[in-house]
């Protein structure tokens, strides 16, 4: 198949910190170097993009010498940790910012969906907003006109089509916005995973739409750190790490590398408790370490269905508490809903004092999860006023359940297997 997109040596330098009086002297210095035909001194010194390492250098490479090709009809997943350069690459591909060097060659019409409903005006009716949003996304008026009825039907807002969208419920608003985006027909579609927010029905609609798009021979570039969705949708993936391509290959191989890379995450009592998106809680009791082991005590996060999976949670008491409960949950990679959770395990807190460290082992002798990638959720808290002391949500490597080599069952949709009986009667 032919190549529809080729990125050649894409690099991007970002300036960290505030733009202010200091920048003007830097601008002048950079301009002077340009006049005297020397390379910009700030770009030469730019450092690798590692958000956890402090540096005095204000300039970093968000991307460095990125090269890849995309074939027609491919669904390419872009994965990597926060700050790996996924969004920057996305922005360059969607032309909202230019690369510092290198270029990208594209064949066909390209459209990007970094959000739905861009340019919606609250005072305009649904009808007017369909036209406006469609035009912003690059559709011609005649094109929107011919798809108008389909868009309205897809959104299911026939009755409200002449009402200003500010009167819409948030669900209707998002449906209408997505309906317009779903009727775009570009040759290459770039999608950000932030799209996959909203209720489960809507997420499935988004993901289903992406599959449709590629079945029509269009190319999709999907950016995500949702391993489950990438695994489901993409045949090939690229792993970005600190602005460079770490691995480009088949999805399962890339996910494996990504997961191993994340094994290095340190969970300790000093780890950023205020970060609402990752770790939250009141902090009286904290996780110090979390590890998973297979039946022969090997530290791993890859298992087969019905394997023995044991969790070792290392816990530190910062302030003594009256009651301490612990819980583990698995999340579905696709929708991020919790699909299974242990009941809250009561930890004996008699005679504990500040500074005590102990471990809890939670063992699943025969884990009943179908093959897939399951993100994990660890919780410490108490039943008083539903307090959470420490929550580690999607910070640890996900649990990967592989298809057992002995199984012939290739149907892997769903999360659990259950025993059932089967009977056939002729009437």
């Amino acid at each position: 198949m032919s190549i529809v997109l080729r990125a050649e040596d894409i690099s991007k330098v970002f300036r960290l910190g505030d733009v202010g009086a200091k920048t003007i002297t830097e601008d002048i210095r950079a301009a002077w170097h340009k006049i005297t035909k020397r390379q910009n001194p700030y770009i030469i010194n730019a450092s690798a993009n590692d958000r956890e390492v402090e540096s005095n250098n204000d300039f970093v490479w968000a991307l460095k010498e990125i090269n890849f090709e995309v074939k027609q009809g491919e669904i390419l997943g872009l994965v990597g940790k926060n700050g790996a350069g996924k969004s920057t690459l996305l922005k360059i591909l969607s032309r909202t910012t230019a690369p510092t060097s290198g270029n990208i060659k594209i064949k066909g019409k390209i459209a990007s969906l970094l959000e739905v409903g861009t340019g919606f005006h609250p005072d305009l009716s649904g009808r007017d907003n369909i036209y406006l949003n469609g035009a912003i996304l690059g559709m011609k008026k005649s094109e929107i006109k011919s798809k108008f009825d389909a868009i309205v039907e897809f959104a299911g807002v026939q009755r409200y089509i002449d009402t200003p969208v500010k009167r819409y419920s948030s669900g209707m608003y998002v449906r209408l916005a997505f309906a317009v985006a779903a009727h775009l027909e570009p040759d290459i579609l770039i999608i950000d995973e932030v799209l996959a927010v909203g209720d489960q029905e809507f997420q499935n609609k988004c993901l289903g739409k992406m599959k449709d798009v590629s079945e029509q021979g269009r190319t999709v570039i999907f950016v995500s750190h949702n391993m489950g969705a990438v695994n489901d949708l993409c045949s090939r993936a690229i792993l970005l790490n600190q602005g460079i391509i770490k691995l480009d290959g088949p999805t399962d191989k890339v996910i494996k590398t990504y997961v191993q890379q994340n094994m290095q995450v340190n969970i300790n009592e000093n780890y950023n408790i205020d970060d609402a998106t990752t770790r939250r809680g009141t902090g009286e009791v904290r996780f110090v370490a979390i590890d998973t082991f297979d039946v022969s005590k090997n530290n791993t996060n890859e298992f087969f269905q019905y394997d023995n999976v044991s969790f070792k949670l290392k816990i530190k008491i910062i302030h003594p508490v009256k009651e301490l409960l612990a819980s583990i949950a698995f999340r579905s990679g696709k929708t991020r809903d919790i699909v299974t959770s242990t009941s809250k395990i009561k930890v004996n807190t008699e005679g504990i004092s500040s500074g005590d460290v102990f471990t809890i082992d939670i063992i699943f002798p025969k884990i009943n999860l179908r093959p897939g990638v399951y993100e994990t959720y660890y919780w410490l808290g108490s039943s008083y006023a539903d307090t959470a002391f420490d929550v580690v949500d999607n910070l640890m490597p996900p649990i990967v359940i592989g298809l057992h080599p002995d199984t012939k069952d290739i149907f892997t949709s769903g999360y659990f297997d259950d025993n059932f009986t089967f009977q056939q009667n002729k009437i």
Partner: protein
Amino acid sequence: MRVEKSEDWTLVIKPKSNLLDFQLKQLWEYRDLLFLLVRRDIVTVYKQTLLGFFWFILPPILNTLTYFIIFGLIAKVSTDGTNPILFYLTGVISWGYFADCINRTSTTFRTNASIFGKVYFPRIIVPISSVASALVKFAIQIGLLIAVVCYFYFTENNVFPQFKYIWLLPIIIILMAFYGLAIGIIISSLTTKYRDLSNLVPFAVSLLMYATPVIYPSSIIPEKFKWIIQINPLTPLIESFRFIFLGSDQISWWQLIYCFVFTIVLFVIGLVLFNKTEKTFMDTV
């Protein structure tokens, strides 16, 4: 390996574009967006107001009355024998359009940062649409002006509309639009990184009005200061506008040509700056 010809690609994303590559073809492809943005601006501005379009004509009427009372009745500034109401009204309306163009376009990047950060389309569409939608307001105000001119023409017979120069009117309006647009996009490009300038703009625009014969005729300016009025490219536009409707002031063809050249040069500078800024402003805004 297959060797690809360069013309195989429909689009190449590069760090910098050619300075003078304005991508007019692409602009034409997005003409529907231009039309829809103009429509949005017009429809939404006075939505949920009782008086609706009346707000387009109320401000110039009030401004004219204010100038008439302060400059005409109290300060007794000469209007060169022209009916003072009409003199101020023509000044207020034509200046108003120009100022509108600057004010609306000078914040293009900052007010649209959320859209620009998500979707690509030729950014220049947005300031052009602002200038075009301001034109609708201007047209309605010209309607008001024509009504007032008719009233004085038939009751007092002291206005002399120059019908044989009516062809000049669209040219003057286009020049005003492009001059305002040029200044606006230059300011909006410069303010993405350093915001200081944006604090100066409203102040500078109102100062510029006093350096333009809006509320006084250029004839009352002492010779010593005439050059200020003469190098101001806006002077011939306002004066020609007044000449066409009232028959007062005069058309200085040399000044009009000067204004024309000045506007083109400024607009090209503006486009170059704007195109340069649109590539990276998301990193600094």
